[in-house]
């Protein structure tokens, strides 16, 4: 094999190894319990109860959050144990109570939280349309003489504008 080609092969191999190593970096970073995508994904469904930020565990931006960091560690351990997102959330809710959820579930009493703004909006629309119907001015009924005047002016406009809408030359 010519020297030149061997050098090229070596370079290519090095580049390939570098690319391979680089491609592992996100996976290595992802193993950090605090930044793992799986942890952040599950964390978004759970409330950060540090009392300061009112974000979810997944979105809490506080540095060394006294609640968020341990909770992320806890979620990480569960993901390592092969639990699915739903299983993790259900386990934490079972252990900590419904207060663990960042937003109420769309079932049981929690359903009220979600539907009430919508119901209020629908009621508002009904009130709005009822108000508009009730307070809308009815089209004015014209008397026979008013109608005759209007007809006379309409025909005059038609006559003066001509069929194609252009003003006739005088």
């Amino acid at each position: 094999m010519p020297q030149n080609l061997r050098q090229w092969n070596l370079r290519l191999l090095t580049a390939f190894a570098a690319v391979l190593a680089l491609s592992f970096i996100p996976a290595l970073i992802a193993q950090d319990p605090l930044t793992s995508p799986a942890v952040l994904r599950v964390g978004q469904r759970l409330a950060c109860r540090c009392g300061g930020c009112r974000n979810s565990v997944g979105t809490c931006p506080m540095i060394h959050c006294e609640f968020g960091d341990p909770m992320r560690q806890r979620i990480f351990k569960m993901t390592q144990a092969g639990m699915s997102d739903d299983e993790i959330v259900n386990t934490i809710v079972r252990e900590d109570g419904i207060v663990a959820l960042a937003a109420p579930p769309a079932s049981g009493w929690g359903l009220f939280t979600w539907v009430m703004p919508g119901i209020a909006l629908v009621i508002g629309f009904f009130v709005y349309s009822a108000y508009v119907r009730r307070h809308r001015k009815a089209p004015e009924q014209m008397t026979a003489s008013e109608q005759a005047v209007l007809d006379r002016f309409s025909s005059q406009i038609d006559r003066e504008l001509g069929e194609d809408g252009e003003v006739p030359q005088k």
Partner: protein
Amino acid sequence: MENIGALSVLLAFCLAVFAVAAAVAGKYGRRPFLVVSAARSVYAIWLLLTIASGVLVYSLITGDYRLAYVAAHSNKAMPAIYKFTAWWGGQEGSLLFWSWLLSSYSAIVVYNNRRKFQSMMPIVIAILMTTEAFFISMVTFVASPFAVLMAGKGIINVGDGQGLNPLLQWWTMVIHPPFLYLGFVGFVVPFAFAMASLITRQPGEAWIHTTRRWAIVTWLFQTTGVMLGMGWAYTVLGWGGYWGWDPVENASLLPWITATAFLHSVMMQEKKGMMKVWNMVLVSATFLLSILGTTLTRTGLVSSVHAFAQSPVKPYFTTFLISATVLTAFAIIVNLPYLRSEVKLESVVSRESSFLFNNLILLASCFAVLWGTLFPVIMEALSGEKETIDAPYYNRVNIPIGLFLLFLTGVGPLIAWRKSSLDSLKRAFMLPAIIGVAVAGALTIGGVRHPEALLSFGLCAFVLSSILGEFWKGSRAIQGKEHVALPRAAFELTWRNTRRYGGYLVHMGIVFMFVGFTGSAFNQQETRYLGLDQSTRFGQYDIKLLTVTDGDTPDYAKSQAVLDISKNGEEIAQMQPEIREYKASQQQSSFVAIRRRLNEDLYINYSGITSDNKKAIFKMYLFPLVDWLWAGYWVVLFGTLVCLVPSKVRLLYARTEVVGIATKPATVES
């Protein structure tokens, strides 16, 4: 000293009760001297509460730690300005501050109207003083700031106090609570005039003309208070959050929303004699929500980082709130015939209809926030189970509502009063809609893939172009007619109708704020560990740790990091985040370093040294477009001030249909 303060509030309470009784008895018993006496009591109450507040402030400044309030909220090491702000830093002092502000407002109202509204003023005084009596009763009997520590147990001197929470020792916190209170308390006045007008069945819209500027000013105070709170949270809490949907934050937002709806719908009553019931409901809701906000903050009803600790005021506040709600509803229902609209709606496609719609959406947003705030309390009462409602709920519910409101902000100016034809709508909408779509399209091509952000930016462009279009058309017309330069024509246009064009400027500020909110979709954050002279790349910035130094002051010990910031190889700034440990409270507080720019803020929080003492820990954030939020506030402020300037031209609007006999046309600044 404390006895003078306690006696002053007790006398003020007695006078407030007397003022209510004298005003009502004077009005209905036809005894004018009693009404005059009630009015003078208002001045006396202000004087007494000023004395009481002076005593408390003096005790705080001089460090009279025998007083429980002074010991709990100040200490020797605190700078004088924070000793002064401790007046409203705790439960008891803030109630005194509330009472003092209300007495000041009441005195101004009574003085300004001493020769006006003879039949209405006694009721105005009665309503103001009923509210005042309630708050003073709290200060007098339930949560006194003049209670002496260990009274009767032989202690006559206490060395030092606990000090104010370090997080509150920040300049925006000096003015944030007063502004918020000025806004909360201020809406008692329009409410009092509205109720008095209703109860005495005043002809016309006197209460609106009298309180319009008052409502605008208090709305501005509320806005400023809310924005200062946001600015404080952004700068001080250390993670760049400015709105956390905390119950107490929500409590400040709720009356702001109803006040905003009121400022819009009140124009309908002024110009058309419509929506009288609605305006009465809105002004009452704003007052009641202000009281609710105060209740939430002071009673520990909801768990909040801002709330004062559990206190004995809870049952009293709840009773006052329920009684005020029932009485207000009763007054409105009994007087419904008096509130009948004078004019019918001519078309669904009209400015009137769009105002109605805008109010509906604002109220939906208000309800969603109120529901989210109170639902955990209701839920706990019903099922005994605690529930959390955090940012995910509010964002999911309020972002669509907010975007729709933004859309309506752009639509409103394009629709004519009374009736708009489809052709005129098409003409008015075409250009702003094209610009909105073009901006969203350009951003998509530029790589933005966040659907809500694209929609928001598109709507911002739509609204901004519709507002600028209004200025452009009006200014061009004046320029053509009077042959002046365009800026001069724009100035003239605004001056001729300050309410309209000032309102457009306020809308422009709101658009800027939406740009700021939308930028949060692209926030970035990283934790980095840096040794001395080590660099790291974050976003477009190269950040190098130069030094870490320790320091000491009488109030706190500090550790400060100095960071060198470069962009594209060029040094652009030095940032110095620090940590302080307050000696009195042993509390730690981060002082973040922020490099503010309109495109993005670089925000660095220094959180300490690693356990092996080799590296400093930094949490770094990039907040794109966040400064548009603060810029938007200044535009809102400017626009509101423009609204308050009397117009050069006073326009006369004859009502199109008036029930009853009109002797002269209504005179309204458009």
